[in-house]
């Protein structure tokens, strides 16, 4: 393809576009504070997100960040504070997709809601933060991106000011978040203390200098894991998640549980692969840090799925299930100690991508239900299929996909993850436990996911409902997500290649 020479900083374009969108929205808001012109606002957001998506896809296609391409190899910006590689682009794409879906859905969800502009600008700011997380290559930038994501998220969760649920969710999210970030920062300080640098490669380079401060470094790393665990809603930093997802407006729950989680993981992938290469780190701190992730993965997926199994509130069930999925993805980090670590991580990335569609879709369906005002429990959903077959078919697709039933995307990613875990287990038998946990948990998950399908399709409605509206935006978002979830399996070839290569660049 034709080689176009762009200034290097433009490699950050996907994130910058989002930031610009945020500013545009602010501008609009300052000009017309009380505008409730939902079309313009969500339209702008969608355009911004799609633009960011387009650019990211273009870069990825053009080979930016791909190893072994001379002009566009991995791009370092501000002497390595930021790095744009395939990994970064992959997750920028995920974030952009989710943002777009959420924005489209919000158009209807937010009708007759006062703070339109704030909502969208906060949304885009958070998205910007996530995009930045994908490219951050220094603990400083990581932390800033982290906070840039968190602070708007707190506000977004609590944005329904007169809704006790929303506020309570916001509070819990915020408090746990603050605590976690404090722990994270302290971890950063310890790592800095041990290695004397915050730029990831530099940390890796100075590991041996840590010397007698191995214990401190270990503690620091553990605290970093804590910060990541918070973002990805993994045990033991997951406590905010059920409430936050349940209380927040459904689109925001979708946004946090998909995009925010993905961002948290890209952070983990980058930090732990770049800054703490296994052999060197193990030499200093005396323990292979993947053990932490093995434990976390098993505990997280088990806790998430078990807690989800008997929920009565659909949104809460999805919240717990999203914890469970975080557990699945954590295997991607747990397996790094093996030679097939890049494959497992690639599979984990694919799972996050597919998850971006199916989980977002699922939460958006809940949003649709809230829009209809049918109620929040399984019983309230009974027999919706007779009135809204299309949306319910989409929801069935999401559920089966989340449960890992073919021919849907979730099946592909989960089983890739599963088989690679087994492959990795040939070197680290502890991963067999993870694989076993995966089997047990997805069986259990099948139970509660199909419970929702049962409610929608099999049960009879408890009480008569009047006809349900068909909001264009929500429907569009849900159907789009469903279609992609349904057909993505066929396109797994290229996706798998990209993901695996991206993983290989950081792991290798």
């Amino acid at each position: 393809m034709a080689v176009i020479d762009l200034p290097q900083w433009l490699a950050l374009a996907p994130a910058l576009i989002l930031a610009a969108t945020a500013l545009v929205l602010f501008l609009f808001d300052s000009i017309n504070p009380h505008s409730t012109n939902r079309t313009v606002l969500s339209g702008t957001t969608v355009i911004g997100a799609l633009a960011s998506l387009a650019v990211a896809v273009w870069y990825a296609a053009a080979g930016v960040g791909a190893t072994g391409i001379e002009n566009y190899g991995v791009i370092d910006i501000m002497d390595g504070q930021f790095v744009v590689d395939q990994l970064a682009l992959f997750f920028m794409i995920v974030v952009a997709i989710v943002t777009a879906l959420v924005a489209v859905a919000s158009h209807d969800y937010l009708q007759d809601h006062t703070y339109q502009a704030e909502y969208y600008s906060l949304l885009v700011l958070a998205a910007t933060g996530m995009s930045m997380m994908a490219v951050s290559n220094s603990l400083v930038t990581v932390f800033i991106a982290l906070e840039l994501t968190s602070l708007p998220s707190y506000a977004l969760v609590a944005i329904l000011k007169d809704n006790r649920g929303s506020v309570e969710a916001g509070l819990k999210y915020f408090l746990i978040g603050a605590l976690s970030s404090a722990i994270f920062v302290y971890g950063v300080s310890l790592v800095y203390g041990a290695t004397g640098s915050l730029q990831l490669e530099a940390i890796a380079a100075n590991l041996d200098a840590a010397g007698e401060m191995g214990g401190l470094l270990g503690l620091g790393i553990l605290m970093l894991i804590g910060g990541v665990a918070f973002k990805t809603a993994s045990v033991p930093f997951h406590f905010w998640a059920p409430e936050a997802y349940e209380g927040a407006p459904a689109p925001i729950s979708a946004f946090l549980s998909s995009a925010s989680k993905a961002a948290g993981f890209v952070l983990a992938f980058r930090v732990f692969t770049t800054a703490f290469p296994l052999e060197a780190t193990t030499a200093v701190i005396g323990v292979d840090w993947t053990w932490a992730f093995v434990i976390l993965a098993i505990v997280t997926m088990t806790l998430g799925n078990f807690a989800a199994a008997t929920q009565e509130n659909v949104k809460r069930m999805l919240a717990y299930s999203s914890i469970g999925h975080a557990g699945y993805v954590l295997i991607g980090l747990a397996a790094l100690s093996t030679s097939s670590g890049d494959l497992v991580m690639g599979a984990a990335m694919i799972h996050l991508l597919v998850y971006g569609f199916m989980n977002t879709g699922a939460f958006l369906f809940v949003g649709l239900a809230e829009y209809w005002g049918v109620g929040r429990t399984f019983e309230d959903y009974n027999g919706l299929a007779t009135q809204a077959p299309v949306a319910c078919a989409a929801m069935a697709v999401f559920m089966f996909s989340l449960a890992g039933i073919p021919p849907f995307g979730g099946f592909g990613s989960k089983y890739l993850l599963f088989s690679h875990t087994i492959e990795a287990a040939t070197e680290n038998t502890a991963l067999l436990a993870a694989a076993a946990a995966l089997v047990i948990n997805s069986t259990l998950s099948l139970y509660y996911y199909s419970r929702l399908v049962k409610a929608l399709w099999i049960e009879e409605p408890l009480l008569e409902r009047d006809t349900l509206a068909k909001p264009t935006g929500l429907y569009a978002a849900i159907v789009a997500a469903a279609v992609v979830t349904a057909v993505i399996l066929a396109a797994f070839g290229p996706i798998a290649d990209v993901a695996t290569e991206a993983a290989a660049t950081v792991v290798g």
Partner: protein
Amino acid sequence: MAATATGPFGFAPAIAVFPLVAFVITLLFGKHLPKKGALPGIIATGGSLVVSLVMAAAVAGGDAHHTELYEWTAGAAASETGAETIAFTFGILIDPLSALMLVIVSLVALLVHVFSLGYMNAEGETGLRRYYAELGLFTFSMLAFVFADNLLMAFMFFELVGLCSYLLIGFWFRTESAPSAAKKAFLVTRFGDYFFLIGVVAIAATFGTVGFAGEGSFVTAAETAIEDGATLFGFDAQTWVTITGLLVLGGVLGKSAQFPFHTWLPDAMEGPTTVSALIHAATMVAAGVYLVARMFGYYALSPTALSIIAFVGGFTALFAATMAVVKDDVKQVLAYSTISQYGYMMLGLGVGGYVAGVFHLMNHAFFKALLFLGAGAVIILMHHEQDMWKMGGLKDKAPVVYYTFLAGALALAGIVPFSGFWSKDEVLFDALAVGLSEPVILAAYAMGLVAVFFTGFYTFRMVFLTFHGEPRSDTAEDPHPVGWAVKVPLLALGTLAAVAGLVNMAPIAKLAGVDITFLEFWLDGEYGYVEGLTYHHYHETVAEMAFEESYIGSETTTMLLSAGLSLGLALAGAFTAHTLYNVPDPDRHTTKLGGAYSVLKSNYYQDEYQVWLAEGFTLPLARAADRFDQTVIDGVVNGTSQISLFGSDWVKRIQTGIVTNYAALLVGGFIALLLVLGYLGGWFA
């Protein structure tokens, strides 16, 4: 394929095909046909009879026929005797034995079809299309079974006749009793067939062939195996032959209603009397005995098997005869006498009396069919009343029925010169001859001999109660008339019952030294024959493998002795019946039997224990299994899900909703992780 066969034999398949076509036609168009499909049946069976006669003639002309019609399937055999491949085929084997049997079957079938016109149509039965279709299907299966040239084919049609028997017994399916009797009949025979099938499979798996005749037959294979002293499935050859032979015998006992599988036959009388005549007297029940005769060469290799056959036969003969003594239902008497008569045939075959057995098979087919049809006629006369105590004095009202029935009775009782005498006598003579050196056989012979007395008794008890004395009911006063369709078959069979015995008058032959034992010559391959399936071949095998015969004095004296003995006993029995029952108003005389009466009346409690086996043992066992399945096995499955859901309920309680607890748990979890890693990393060292 059959066309390859030369001459008349090319038409052999037609014997079976005619009734099959009749079956199809009746099934499809029976409703619109005149006589509801009787005509296709009559035509078809007539055709079969003609072709069968042609076959017999051809055999008489010194010819025999063995050809493969159609290959069912073929494949690799992992046989013990090293045969690499095996082919399962449908083929035709027409030798003296099968030719004879074909004639018998098609003849009786024809007569029964004709009789049915009087018995079913004239009586205005419904469901005649079904009746004639099933009759056609039966005739087809039976004839195909008869000319089957291998064991598997035999088994297949053996099963099919079982099906037809089931359907025809249950013809009056709207009653409670008929379906249950049908079910019982099928189940009991099925139980026998279970062993039969094992036998078939075992023989196939052992010798890699299931053929009856020729070099490729399993009989030949077995002979060679025994000669080579081979070991088959861990047994020495002869033991294995015995085992497999006895397994096949299971099916025989079931079909021919031999002890302990005899219980179904009396119940089978629930079916129309015509069916009883055709299936449960003349043909299907004969299938078992016929099968033994068919593969006699195989049994001849095993004295154990033979003596078991003989003993079971002798025992059944007596056993059933005693039960027949106390029955009041005319059909019941006949049913038990059938069982008993087949016992004689088994006895005959079991002692190596191949000719005797087949001879009695033939005679019995005629006279028992006759008796059943006669009984049928009586039942018409009596407006479907079957209790002999309500009859009486019919002999003047229906002379034709009476005299033909009498002929049958004399044959059954074995009174010279009626057919039954000659064959039964020969059976007993052979048994005696062998028995003199084989105690087991002697016991069997003794039982057979005693049975002769009972036979004479119950036969004439039946005759006297039915036809003699004063009418004991209004219907007996003026019976329903019977038409030509009833009389013709009776006359035909009556004649046969009277004269059929003349074809093999062994005693006369011995005394007068003239060669008039035609049946023996027939079976001995004096005319057409298939190598290895002849009487003297069997005879030699038996002599070499199993028994040698010995005589009291000379052979002739022994023969006369046995003949006189049996005739005397038969007459004694008949006379006893005469004194007791041939009076104007006979008495039941049950008290004379005392305690024995109840035992006999309830058939030695045979049905009881078999019913108990089915309903008192198997069913509860099944229910127990079901409970086990529902509680234990399914309980584990549901338990697992219950436990996980309970676990879920427990896990989610961690989320108390109070944020400070979260902080505490968070920190606690973090510290736990810290401790684990710290321990692994030795940071606290």
